[in-house]
């Protein structure tokens, strides 16, 4: 399945939904894309540093030593 087909199914809603069917598994491409997006955002939320977190941790440890 090409990228163009997937993106077309996701972004053009003016047509019947495309489905991925494999044995018992049956889900629209839009829903699969959404779940993958949620997994990516979840992983990024864990991995990416939060702005100012290091500065605050350094200030905290400095305060503990001082």
């Amino acid at each position, binding site marked *: 399945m090409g990228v163009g087909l997937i993106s077309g199914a996701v972004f053009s809603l003016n047509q019947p939904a495309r489905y991925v069917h494999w044995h018992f598994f049956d889900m629209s491409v839009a829903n699969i894309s959404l779940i993958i997006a*949620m997994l990516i955002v*979840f992983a990024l*939320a864990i991995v990416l540093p939060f702005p100012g977190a290091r500065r605050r941790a350094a200030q905290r440890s400095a*305060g*503990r030593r001082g």
Partner: protein
Amino acid sequence: MSDLSTSNPAAGGPADSELASSWTVRLRESAVRSWPPERLLPDSQPSYVASWIYVFGAATIGALIVVITSGVILGLKGPAWWHDTGVGHFFNSVHLWSVELFFFTMVVHLWGKFFMAAWRGGRARTWISGALIFLIAIGTAFTGYVSQQNFDSQWISTQGKDAMNSVGIGAFFNVTNFGQMYTYHVLLLPAAVVVLVGAHILLVRRHGVVPPLPLGKSDGGPESAAVDGEAGGAPGLGRPEQTMPSPTQTGRPQ
């Protein structure tokens, strides 16, 4: 009697014993004990909250505010407006996509809390209220889809009625009855979601934001145990007082 008492028998006011039996006094004192102002509206958060994974609860509330605001506008203007006018289409789309964002952020929030075992430290009710919000929100979204007043809602309702009938609730929850579904969608279920979200936030404020799971002693050393307010306790059995971070654990600059 606490300092909240305003009794003055000499001036003809109620005696302390009368005040102690007053349900309003007991409720007020209980509320202040559970949520003192500095805990209800804190000026800093524990240092571990400085992570993107802690953002998604607030993001879900933000999306919910947009959902309710756009939904109120749609409800006031009516189906002809949201189907036939450009501005109506816009607000219809804002309502749909804010719901998508609401569920997106809520699911990421749920995953984060699940893998953090967020029911630890006496936070079981916080976890359960969150799970209830998730389930009721699904029903709210479903009744919204069958209240659209278009072919899509007809298709969904005629497919969904079989599921309702198969579990024996079709007589009470008739998905082909627009009036009933609309009442569920704009009043009963949103009210339940809003009340539970309020309770959820109050429980978070009472017990504090759940800390990350402690690292092993060889990995994190003493700091990992210090961050987790229930270190050494059994999961889920910690008292609220034990779970609140100490001032030295907060992110306030020292």
